[in-house]
């Protein structure tokens, strides 16, 4: 994707420092006029369409496949089975050096002997049109031998459970434990122990644009060109090269405009790699666009945890210890290449980390089940950790009759304690917990809200207030995937070049699916170089044209992408000033760049237009001294090494009303205070928080992948799977606390996952606050009317 980032109006640009300015994204101008260009918008000469025949069963042996009739259907170009595709494509083999005990089995891109979840692709039909391919797909005759399926994760771990993968001998993929401090002692000493059993429904990302890929294999050069709706084109190019047998430089992956991603478009999908294989078999472009029904059963799912947890508390309100036991169902395979276990790792390592207690024990059991794969979706396990913690905190304050605000403040890791290592094993550079709570109290008049709640209760109106501190890890270092020996980069790379016109192009590995990363990076480049933001174009999303980067995940766009852009821009500035110094016969140190001009470093007097330098450097080098070689293209890499990850944190507040007659929840107010370090662009930062919070609200109130015991997803349509719409969502109030990380010059820490990470605990606490006076208690999300009425004991 390429787009010129910059202001649409002149009022917002401060020429001296664009960082911190609310600059609209120039690329939105394309999007509002129908000029967006998404993968499915593209067609290529001789392009054909792939459709996959998918297993109707959650677990079944493929006894035979007859493709004869399908192959003869109108428009059909080719029908292939798993065995045929396996000849050109290696199966996924997940491996994580940090978890050698992780039990895995190879995953074929099209099932070969048996299908392990409803929706797994088992054959592919390629035809002249999507409709014809669908017609023919129904003619592929498969004889199935149904096998017993196991859908529920707890059931999967039972001794007599049917096995998802016979060869593993167990459904337990991995068990992780932490035991720090004296947990037994803490619980023995506790005045109060609060205990809860939580259920977090499985849900999914529901990007509005379904997954889409066009693979174009050219046999004459043995090269593969792919256009794909994806967050990580470089990583995909690497996967395709290694799995399909290409030299690395013969694969190019371009991600054009991407219609929502959220982690859902971070991984290789079996059907996408199969599409590449189909193009190789046919030697022509093949398009595959998931339709909405298959999206629900093939897109990555997330959550799906059953947690038992308890907290030990003293009578005067100190948290003494925490114990967490989680069962997490990951579906039929561990997602390649990252594995699916990070949701569990985050439950293990992020529970209770905001608080200064030292006694912590946790266990996470990761279970295979005959369901769609679960893995990396926005927040990755952190909403679970935060919900468990914050719910127990509220239960403790209720039990002890303490103020939930004061209780939190009392127990937070104090600001002088950093750097802090939590008893979970994770370390934190800094968390502005108290500052965020102070800011929340400025943003929302909590005592007034309580008074309103209490007075309405007298009229039979049940409102609740819930607050939830949240903590997040962002912008991870090679300590994660590097140490795991998984080919996921921690670095970002950037080329900044001065164009002959005096404008600037920035080519970066980082990608942008609408978050506004490109605009933020343009602001960083502009600020560092001293040029107007409008003069900077950021180009990303092309594995061949941009330097290697891991793309968008773990809230790393501004933190790592921004930092590398800063470093590259600084280097380019030095080079520009060196040329300017030669022309002006000054020392480089005596010059500076400001608003697109060379100025005197002292006093700021304009000396020369940058455009003039660019012109000389590109076309009139004859006027330069012979030893001056203008270096107007600069490349830099940046790998975060100082810390294993950055630490974001914040607090959210929900105010809502429960209708006990219907079990309905109406969210009335929602507020978020967040610390993402340096705020490059508050317009975009706040928009990220809002969008994330609404996804978290969705998970708390609406979203659930409902499966029956046979592993059939029962609500796999957009009519039945409920996402939040405009009428369900209130305006979301936002405030920032800014504590830049010291591990980078830019100081940005990441914002993509903040909203989703803290919304569900705030809502669950508010619901419990509302139904508590009616004797209700709820520890399951989404908080559907059915569950609320059950919690109230009326049904």
């Amino acid at each position: 994707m390429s787009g010129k980032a910059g202001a649409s109006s002149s009022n917002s640009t401060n020429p001296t420092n664009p960082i911190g300015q609310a600059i609209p994204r120039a690329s939105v101008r394309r999007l509002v006029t129908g000029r967006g260009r998404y993968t499915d918008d593209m067609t290529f000469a001789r392009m054909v369409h792939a459709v996959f025949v998918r297993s109707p069963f959650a677990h079944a042996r493929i006894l035979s496949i007859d493709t004869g009739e399908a192959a003869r259907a109108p428009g059909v170009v080719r029908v292939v089975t798993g065995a045929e595709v396996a000849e050109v494509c290696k199966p996924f083999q997940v491996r994580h050096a940090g978890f050698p005990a992780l039990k895995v089995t190879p995953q074929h891109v099209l099932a070969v002997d048996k299908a392990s979840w409803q929706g797994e692709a088992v054959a592919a039909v390629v035809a002249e049109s999507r409709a014809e391919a669908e017609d023919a797909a129904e003619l592929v005759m498969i004889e199935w031998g149904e096998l017993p399926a196991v859908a529920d994760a707890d059931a999967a771990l039972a001794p007599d459970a049917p096995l998802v993968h016979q060869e593993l001998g167990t459904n337990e993929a991995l068990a992780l434990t932490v035991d720090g401090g004296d947990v037994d002692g803490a619980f023995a000493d506790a005045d109060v122990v609060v205990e809860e059993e939580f259920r977090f429904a499985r849900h999914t990302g529901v990007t509005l644009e379904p997954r889409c890929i066009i693979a174009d294999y050219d046999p004459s050069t043995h090269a593969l060109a792919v256009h794909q709706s994806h967050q990580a084109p470089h990583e995909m190019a690497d996967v395709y090269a290694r799995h399909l047998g290409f030299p690395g430089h013969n694969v190019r992956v371009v991600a054009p405009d991407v219609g929502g991603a959220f982690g859902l478009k971070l991984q290789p999908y079996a059907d996408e790699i199969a599409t590449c294989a189909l193009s190789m078999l046919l030697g022509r472009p093949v398009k595959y666009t998931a339709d909405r029904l298959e999206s629900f059963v093939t897109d990555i799912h997330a959550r799906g945890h059953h947690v038992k947890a308890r907290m030990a508390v003293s009578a005067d309100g100190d948290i003494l210890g925490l114990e967490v036991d989680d069962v997490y169902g990951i579906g039929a395979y561990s997602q390649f290449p990252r594995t699916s276990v990070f949701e569990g790792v985050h439950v293990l390592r992020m529970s209770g980390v905001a608080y200064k207690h030292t006694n912590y024990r946790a266990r996470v059991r990761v279970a295979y089940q005959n369901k769609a794969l679960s893995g990396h979706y926005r927040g990755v396990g952190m909403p679970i950790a935060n919900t468990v913690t914050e719910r127990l905190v509220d239960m403790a304050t209720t039990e002890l009759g303490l103020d939930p605000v004061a209780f939190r403040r009392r127990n937070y890791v104090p600001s002088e304690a950093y750097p802090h290592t939590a008893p979970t094993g994770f370390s934190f550079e800094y968390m502005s917990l108290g500052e965020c709570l102070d800011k929340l109290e400025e943003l929302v008049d909590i005592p007034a809200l309580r008074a309103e709640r209490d007075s309405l209760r007298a009229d039979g109106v049940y409102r609740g207030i819930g607050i939830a501190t949240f903590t997040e890890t962002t912008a991870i270092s090679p300590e994660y995937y590097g140490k795991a020996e998984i080919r996921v980069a921690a670095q970002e790379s950037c080329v900044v070049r001065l164009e002959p016109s005096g404008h600037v192009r920035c080519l970066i590995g980082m990608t942008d699916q609408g978050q506004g990363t490109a605009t933020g990076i343009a602001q960083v480049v502009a600020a560092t170089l001293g040029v107007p933001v409008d003069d900077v174009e950021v180009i990303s999303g092309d594995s061949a044209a941009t330097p290697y980067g891991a793309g968008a995940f773990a809230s790393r766009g501004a933190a790592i992408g921004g930092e590398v852009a800063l470093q590259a821009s600084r280097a380019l500035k030095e080079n520009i000033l060196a040329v300017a110094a030669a022309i002006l016969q000054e020392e480089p140190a005596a010059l500076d760049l400001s608003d697109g001009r060379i100025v005197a470093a002292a006093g700021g007097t304009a000396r020369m237009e940058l455009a003039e330098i660019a012109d000389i450097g590109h076309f009139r080098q004859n006027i330069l001294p012979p030893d001056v070689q203008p270096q107007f293209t600069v490349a830099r890499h940046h790998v975060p090494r100082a810390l294993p990850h950055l630490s974001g944190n914040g607090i959210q507040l929900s105010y809502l009303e429960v209708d006990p007659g219907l079990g309905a929840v109406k969210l009335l107010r929602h507020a978020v205070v967040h610390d993402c370090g340096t705020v490059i662009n508050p317009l975009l930062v706040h928009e990220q928080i809002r969008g994330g919070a609404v996804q978290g609200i969705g998970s708390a109130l609406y979203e659930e992948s409902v499966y029956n015991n046979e592993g059939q997803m029962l609500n796999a349509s957009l009519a039945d799977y409920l996402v939040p719409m405009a009428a369900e969502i209130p305006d979301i109030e936002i405030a920032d606390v800014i504590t830049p990380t010291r591990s980078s010059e830019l100081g940005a820490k990441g914002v993509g996952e903040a909203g989703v990470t803290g919304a569900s605990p705030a809502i669950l606490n508010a619901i419990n606050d509302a139904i508590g006076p009616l004797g209700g208690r709820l520890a399951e999300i989404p908080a559907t009317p059915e569950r609320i009425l059950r919690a109230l004991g009326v049904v």
Partner: protein
Amino acid sequence: MDDTIEITLTVNGETVTRRTSPRQHLVDFLRGELGLTGSHVGCEHGVCGACTIRLDGRAVRGCLTLAVQADGARVETIEGLTESSEISDLQRLFVERNAAQCGYCTPGMLLTAAELVAAGQAMPRAAIRDFMSGNYCRCTGYQAIIDAIEHVLEARFGAPAKEEG
């Protein structure tokens, strides 16, 4: 059985004649046959609103109308509304408020909002949210979209009458 049928319709003010398969829905026709890729396909069962277009002056789901049904009809898409400048204020406000992230829902949102604007009166914020509730946006959290529409309604028609209740 799937013989194509010739249809003639006006698309964004231009008369076009094409042959189409009866089973092709209107948004596939616009995208595939006419290259009007501003209208998007999100669910093909009428829920998400990404395919919202204008048929004979009214916003409809492009996936729930067949192309053959548009024979003789007047169809407008985001490309046409852009060219006519009918919603240039809405578009400008969407940019200023960052009322689009990935942009996939945006043309459908704008077509729905255009109907609201065409109704010719200001509306309270909650009513705008209700009106827009048939268009799914996964990215923004909706607030910026509502802000943009509210601003345009107020600029065109003044402040809304005070909300009841």
